[in-house]
């Protein structure tokens, strides 16, 4: 699980590194290209894949539950169940089945996005007032046309708000994924914790925090951009 040599490299450590001061800018700069930048890119990839697949699944489930109310309780219960399993544990539970692989990590990450995305999409679809749906029907729209042209646009604020929550929580949980495979920003966090090397912990942890805040802000702006007629605050 450990990346790099088990015995840390001591040969050219500065005073700061040898004394393990809180933050050594020289060390952080030296290892930006070979450690932090790749970890950051991996982290973004992990997150995008998980949110993309999670959204596809939740969206279809929400459409199904919107058409057929009876489907809602079982889907909601299943997604809520996944949500309560501690991430650290779910990763390990999957190892006997799918091994120490990217697949294991992505299955766990996807399962955590389901509850939020499903709930918000469904709530958004149902948020269309009955009069509006009635009017759509009165104009001769088929249920499918009404869904695409009326309910979905009205559901957009809730959907984007759900994507926002799902994305930031996936960024958070993806750091835990490095407990299994050295992938993403969690890898330097965990190895930093093992070595108790403060600079590594701070840079990697700080990058994870910055990435989460940046993603949050970008999705907030996206939400405003796609729904100029409303603010998504209510579902945030």
């Amino acid at each position, binding site marked *: 699980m450990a990346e790099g040599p088990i015995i840390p490299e001591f040969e050219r450590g500065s005073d700061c590194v040898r004394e393990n001061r*809180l933050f050594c800018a020289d060390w952080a700069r030296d290892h930006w290209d070979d450690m932090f930048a790749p970890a950051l890119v991996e982290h973004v990839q992990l997150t995008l894949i998980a949110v993309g697949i999670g959204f596809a699944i939740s969206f279809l489930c929400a459409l199904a539950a919107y058409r057929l109310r009876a489907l809602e309780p079982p889907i909601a219960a299943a997604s809520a*169940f996944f*949500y*309560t*399993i*501690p991430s*650290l*544990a*779910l990763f*390990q*539970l999957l*190892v*006997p089945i799918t091994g120490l692989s990217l697949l294991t990590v992505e299955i766990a990450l996807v399962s955590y996005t389901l*509850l*939020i995305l499903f*709930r*918000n999409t469904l*709530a958004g679809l149902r948020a269309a007032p009955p009069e509006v749906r009635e009017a759509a029907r009165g104009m001769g729209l088929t249920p499918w046309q009404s869904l695409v042209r009326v309910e979905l646009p009205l559901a957009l604020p*809730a959907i984007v*708000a*759900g994507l926002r*929550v*799902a994305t*930031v*929580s996936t*960024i*958070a*949980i993806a*750091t*835990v994924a490095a*407990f299994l495979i050295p992938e993403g*920003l*969690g890898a330097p*966090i*965990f190895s*930093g*914790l093992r070595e*108790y090397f*403060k600079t590594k*912990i*701070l840079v*990697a*942890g*700080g990058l*994870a*925090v910055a990435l*989460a*805040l940046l*993603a*949050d802000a970008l999705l*907030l702006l996206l939400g405003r951009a796609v729904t100029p007629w409303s603010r998504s*605050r*209510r*579902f*945030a």
Partner: protein
Amino acid sequence: MSVFLDALRFVGDNPDLMWEKTVEHLALSGVSIGIALLVALPLGIGLGHLHRGSWIAISLANVGRALPSLALIAIGIAFLGIGFANVAVALVVLAVPPILTNAYVAVDEVDPDAVEAARGMGMGATQVIARVELPLALPLLFAGVRTAAVYVVATATLAGIAGGGGLGDIIVNQASYRLEGVIAAALWVSVLAFAVDAALGLLQRVLTPHGLRPRRPVAGSLPG
């Protein structure tokens, strides 16, 4: 399926270990939620009562929700060293946003006519808060507390990597406790989270005055 039977057997074989770790886990969660309540409830209720600072309440909540807990704990370790305090700090930071935002929105959205009527009856600010706004805000307010509590109990497992104790000690130590121990502890954490949620639900029902039916919680009030 046999893995789950093994997990059950693990609990039967190690009652002392499970008990000790459960107590640690609940102590860590309880302290964190308690501090978060002390910080977030007065602030949320106060701002909601004044109908001010929505920007602060909402954006603080959004920022707080976006913070990755492992990264927070790691950064805490760099500053505070390994142990209980550092994990508790991180858990408080995670628990404050949902409590604060829900408390704010709950009190802020209380029917202004009801508040007006209370003022007309001669109630002061404290009485309005205690006897009108809080009872009416209770369902939404509790939704935030319950969300935070479930979140903290689940996230407290991360204490295992930071020397904070609790059931995470078992979950991160597959080498010693094997897969059945990990599964047993993980399922037990989920049970604890549900139990805490149910207990708070019960408390909510007890505190809700007769004649006030709970509203449905706001969609998307779950933590990140």
